């Protein structure tokens, strides 16, 4: 096998295992958030959690496979490692962005719940006597 093929294979191995690792971390630690957001409705939280992870996998694997092609010939091991580091670096950045996006969604969901408080948004201008009928 040529060095180019090896580069591709190593790239795939690294990016797929990274994606799986991040997705599992999200799946494991995001659950607590979601259970809280859905007022302890475990079934709904698990379902949403699972759906989020599916979307995460789809987008990341989609990116990994789109970004596979190098577009130039790798002549030796050094060039192979350099190409690999650029490709894996891009995957890491995309994973990081996706991860923060997920966190943002979780915190938004939580805030939406928190907003439902019973405190009026604004103070009154005055108080008046209420004559009950």
């Amino acid at each position, binding site marked *: 096998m040529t060095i180019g093929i090896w580069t591709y294979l190593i790239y795939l191995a690294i990016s797929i295992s990274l994606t799986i690792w991040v997705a599992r971390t999200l799946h494991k630690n995001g659950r607590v958030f979601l259970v809280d957001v859905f007022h302890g409705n475990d079934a709904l939280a698990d379902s949403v959690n699972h759906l989020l992870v599916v979307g995460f996998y789809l987008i990341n694997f989609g990116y990994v496979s789109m970004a596979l092609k190098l577009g130039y010939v790798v002549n030796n091991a050094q060039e192979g490692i350099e190409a690999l580091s650029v490709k894996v670096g891009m995957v890491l950045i995309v994973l990081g962005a996706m991860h923060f996006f997920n966190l943002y969604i979780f915190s938004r969901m939580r805030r939406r719940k928190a907003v439902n408080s019973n405190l*009026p*948004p*604004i103070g009154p*201008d*005055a108080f*008046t*006597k*209420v*004559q009950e009928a």
Partner: protein
Amino acid sequence: MRALTVLYDQDCGLCRRAHSWLAEQAKLIELQFVPCASEQARQRYPQLNHDLTKKDLTVIGDDGAVYFGPKAWLMVLWALTQYRDWAYRLATPELLPTTKKVVSVISQNRYQIGKAAGLTR
């Protein structure tokens, strides 16, 4: 707070339209509608300046808290299930001045807006 009394202007088409829209919305807090400066309003709030309530929307909580003008609009939004988060957003220090301006303009021109929109008296 469990209920809000909305003192609205019965002579304005826009207000009546808003009234019927509000009646259909899901609420977190009960809204009671009383025409402003009416006998019912005077009986219920003997110490309130009723001439002032004709100038702009007034909302009164069951604890007697009076919200006038833009504050009253925010309180009405806050009572609605779908718009409570908007009430908080519009009441933030960044947005409150704009909210007040927009609401005042609408309030001051409510008869003209109602007429232009074809909401007859």
